Each structure stands twice: as structure tokens, then as C-alpha cells.
């Protein structure tokens, strides 16, 4: 059964698997070095955004890529985290650097609450409802007294130079990205990972076989929402000003899914490929095209990938690797 998902944990054996990991570790080291010595504000800033999206997309990947539950409302949890930090700052003067974990908790609680009606749904319904909930939350935030509504909330500047700010968030988000990727890597190889894949491939069969689907989904969802909330909290400080439309923008949710699908949903490397590809290509295109044309082009790419390139980039690599292996083994084995 082909899917947009990468079916592959356990495929690479022994030294091949370590090559993959080593590659990404090398990339990580290179990025750390650049963060230390780089001076171009634009690059630091853009990469910072890339890392932030990697975190978000990895969070999405847990329930969406491995579990097959496509959440089209990551903005809800991201925004909840952002607002949680912002509100804690606005009323109590607490810095988001301190309150980010609390923001994560707030988002996780929101995730649990929202999960009550939504995690019972399958496929398209889950996707649609998670999307719609973002709009509902947007309205709530617009109208509740303590969120400052359309006026928005202003954060306090960190007192660093612009370059310093970008470098700070560069490392913050890079660190989170590495952490979360390691988490996803670990989940992939754990029982929970297998349970999620089982749910994705055939939830009813998984239940019959004894997988505690409800628990697994809830835990995955809570983890994903927590991570999104933490990132949201930090984002509040980075962007310095929050208001309901930008913070709960559907674009954030859409980008997350886009990056996962293009890079390879259901693979820990997926977001690592998808986020840079989408953001950097978008940035290059932005010079020649408006953001709307950008979006149109990306949506065509998504359609093509969803229908013709299952598994995104990682899927391609996987199939190419498998073909190579078959070719190597084919010659003596003809019977």
C-alpha cells in the first residue's frame, strides 16, 4: 500500500543507518559553527525560522506522519503557547524564556480538550475539524477580555542587538530542533512508534490486535501540542507583537503539513528536508513572484507529490536505495 508516508524504519541495516545519522550530525555541527561565526542577519534570521518550523513540523510528524492523523490546525496550539507566554508577560512580567515550558503545558491542555471531540474522527473529518477549530479559537482570542483582542500584546525587547537577537533564537530553535528530532527518532524506534504506524495503516486491525489506540493517540497529540506550545512561547518573544490573525494564521498550519509532506511524513528526516526546501525555495521565489503565486506553485507541488511521489523526498530516497540493493542482489539470485 503506497501512501504519502515513508514506510521504512528498520529498512537500513547496520552501517547504512549510521551513515544517515552521521550525515545529519555533520549538518548539525556545521550549523552550530555557522551560528557562532556567521554575521549575515538575513541568513541567521531565515535559518532561525527554518529551525522553528522544523520543530513544529516534527511535532506534527508524530501524530500526523507516523499516526496518519493529519492535523490541519497546528496554529491553534502554536498560538495558544504564544499567547500563554505573552499573557504571562503582560500581566506578571515573566519572560517567555522562563515561561515557555508553561506555554507548552497550556498548549498541551488545549490539545487534550480539543482531542475530546476530534480524536474520535477519522481521516478527512479530523483534518477539517482541526482546521475549523483554529478559526473558532481565533474568534475567542479576539473577543476575550484578557487577550487584548485586536490590539494585540507587545513584548519587551531583550536588549540585545538585532544580530544578537537573531543569533539567540538561531541557537534556541536549533537546539530545540535537534532535541525534537532526537525525540522523534526515538519514538520511531519505540513501541509507540510501531503503535502509531499500526494505527495509520489500519486502525481497526490495530485495535483488534491489542494496540491501545486511544491512549496512543492522546499521548502523541499531547506531546505534539506541548512542543508546538513551547515553540509558540519563544516565538512570542522573537516577534515581539502578537495579535489573533497573524498568530493563529492558517498559513502556519498549512506550511507545517506542506513541509512534512514534501520532506517525507512518517520519517524523522522528513521535516529536516521539508522545512528548508519550502522556506528557502519560497524565499528565492519571493524575489520574482508574489507570495500568492508562491502559494499557487507550492500547492501544485503538493498535489503532484501527494499523488505521484508518495513519501516525499525521503520516499524517493528510500525507493532509490531499495532499487540499488535489488540490483546488487539480483544477479546471482535469478531462479
Amino acid at each position, binding site marked *: 500500500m*503506497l501512501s504519502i508516508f515513508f514506510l521504512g524504519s528498520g529498512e537500513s541495516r547496520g552501517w547504512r543507518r549510521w551513515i544517515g545519522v552521521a550525515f545529519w550530525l555533520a549538518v548539525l555541527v556545521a550549523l552550530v559553527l555557522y551560528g557562532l561565526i556567521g554575521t549575515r542577519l538575513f541568513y541567521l534570521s531565515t535559518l532561525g525560522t527554518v529551525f522553528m518550523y522544523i520543530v513544529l513540523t516534527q511535532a506534527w510528524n508524530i501524530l500526523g506522519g507516523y499516526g496518519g492523523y*493529519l492535523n490541519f490546525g497546528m496554529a491553534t496550539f502554536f498560538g495558544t503557547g504564544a499567547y500563554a507566554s505573552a499573557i504571562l508577560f503582560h500581566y506578571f512580567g515573566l519572560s517567555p524564556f522562563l515561561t515557555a515550558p508553561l506555554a507548552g503545558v497550556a498548549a498541551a491542555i488545549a490539545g487534550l480538550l480539543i482531542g475530546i471531540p476530534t480524536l474520535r474522527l477519522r481521516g*478527512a473529518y479530523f483534518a*477539517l475539524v482541526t482546521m475549523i477549530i483554529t478559526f473558532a479559537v481565533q474568534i475567542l482570542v479576539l*473577543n476575550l477580555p484578557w487577550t487584548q483582542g485586536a490590539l494585540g500584546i507587545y513584548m519587551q525587547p531583550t536588549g540585545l542587538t538585532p544580530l544578537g537577537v537573531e543569533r539567540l533564537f538561531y541557537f534556541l530553535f536549533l537546539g530545540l530542533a535537534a532535541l525534537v528530532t532526537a525525540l522523534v527518532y526515538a519514538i520511531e524506534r519505540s513501541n509507540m512508534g510501531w503503535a502509531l504506524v499500526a494505527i495509520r495503516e489500519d486502525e481497526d486491525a490495530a485495535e483488534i490486535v491489542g494496540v491501545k489506540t486511544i491512549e496512543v493517540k492522546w499521548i502523541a497529540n499531547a506531546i505534539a501540542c506541548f512542543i508546538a506550545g513551547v515553540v509558540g512561547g519563544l516565538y512570542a518573544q522573537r516577534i515581539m507583537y502578537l495579535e489573533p490573525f497573524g498568530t493563529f494564521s492558517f498559513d502556519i498550519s498549512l506550511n507545517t503539513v506542506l513541509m512534512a509532506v514534501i520532506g517525507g511524513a512518517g520519517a524523522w528526516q522528513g521535516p529536516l528536508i521539508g522545512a528548508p526546501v519550502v522556506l528557502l525555495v519560497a524565499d528565492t521565489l519571493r524575489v520574482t513572484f508574489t507570495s500568492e503565486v508562491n502559494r499557487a506553485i507550492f500547492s501544485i507541488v503538493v498535489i503532484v507529490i501527494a499523488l505521484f511521489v508518495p513519501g516525499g523526498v525521503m520516499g524517493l530516497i528510500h525507493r532509490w536505495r531499495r532499487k540499488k540493493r535489488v540490483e546488487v542482489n539480483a544477479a546471482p539470485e535469478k531462479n
Partner: protein
Amino acid sequence: MLTQIGSILADGIMIGLIYAIAGVGLSLVLGIMGVVNVAHSAFIMLGSFFAFELFRRFGLDPIISFFLAFPVFLGAGVVVYRLLITRVETAAQTQGLVAMFGLMVLLESLGTIAWTTDTRVITVGYTNTSMVVGGVVLANVKLIAGALALLLIGAFWAFLRFTLMGRAIRAMGQNRSAAMSVGVNVRQLSAVMFGLGIACAGSAGVALGMVFPFSPNTQILWLAWAFLVVILGGLGNVANTLAAGLVVGLIQTAAAAFMPFDYVYLVLYVLLAVILVVRREGLSGATRRAI
């Protein structure tokens, strides 16, 4: 007091009819073909702009555009079916879903490229006139839009109920392989069915555009509305979708009378969540109601 209730009722019914026609296409395509057309509301939006352009360039009354939209969008729907939906149907469910979201974003982007994000209205001669019946004020546009919607819903229902092709389409949804064995070219008829769904969306867009302001971005809100109507009414049944549309319209106008505008949307989203919790049995897995 009575006139207030009367006007809520009248408004609710007229709006409800428009919601119903917005939901019918989605509901039938979902019920008969099992395709979740997330891009349905994007086509509704294009329908609104279809009427807008015809009015802006040629002064064509939206009432005429309503009827013109049907064959135009029917053709567009058939093309989209052959190019895209056939592949979505054979792909894994999640693959297909992502592709449909891609289509939705594509159409919205194209709409924004063509018309920017500015909010538009279609103001015709009768837009701000109304008639008074029994003390209740009825806006003429809403009356006309509602009547057009009702006409289309009725025609659709009659088509599915009384024509051989309509019955073949329903049969296809009830037992696809039996329909094939009986000689029905399911591919072709699916294209027609999908085309009809999009045609409904296009005409619904015209009706909506007559009454409400719109822009390419509002299409996503229309998706929520259409989805609400479909879930409430159950899949694939015109009469039920009509009833559901009326319920949603009435709830909206009743709520709007008592609470600030924004909260009305909230009420409806909460309603949606409640319905989903209560009716989840009918949603997970493949459930096609009697078509």
C-alpha cells in the same frame, strides 16, 4: 415581538436555503463517491466571482449568472474530475486528502492573484430594497437568492429521484460493482456526479455573492459552513441536507439577534463539535446514508 420572531424565521429560512445549496454538492459527492471535496468552498468562491465579473463587465444580473454558472461549473467539475479526482480516488485516503487541500489552496491562491484580497459585493438595483409581509421586512435579494437556491435543490432532488441517470448515480453509490455489472460506466457517471457537485457549488456561490460580501479568503469560512450542513444532515441525501441548511440558517439568525456577531460563529463551531461527539458512530469508517 412577533414581527421580530417573524423576521428571524424569514431570514433564517432564506439564508438556510443558501447554506443548503452550498452543502448539497459536497454532501452528494461525499456520500455517493466517498470523495471529501475540501476544495468545494473554493469553487463556491469562484462562483461568487463569476457573478461579480459578469456584473462588473457586462452588467449581467446575478440571477442570470446563477443559471449560467451551472453548465460552466459542470464542465469545470468534469475536467477537474478527470485530471485529478480519478487519481485521488485510487490513492490512499490520506494522500488524496492532502491533494484535495492542495487543490483548495491552489484555487484560493488563483482567486487572490486574480482579484486580490479585497472584499467585494454585488450591488444590483434590488439589493437594498425589501418588501413587507405581515409586518415582517423581507430583503428582496435574500428572497430571490433563497428562491433560486430552492429551485436548484428541487431540480437536483428531482433529477436523482425521477430520472434514470439520477437513479444510476445513486445506484453507483449504493453498490459500485453491481452498477458496473449492470452496464453502468461508473467512471463516466462519476465525472458527471462530481461535475454536478461543482455546478451546485458555482451556483451556490452566485447566490451567496448576492447576499454576502466575499473575498478569496472567505472561502475557508464557507467550507466550515458547508461542512456543518453536511455533517448535520448526513451524507448523500438532498432532503436531509436541505433540512440541515435550514436549521443552520435559523440558528445563525436567531443567535445573531441575541449576541455579538463574532460569537455566532463560535456557537456554530461548538455545535459542530457537539454533533461530532454525539454522532461519531456515523462518521468513522465508510458510512453512506440512504441516497
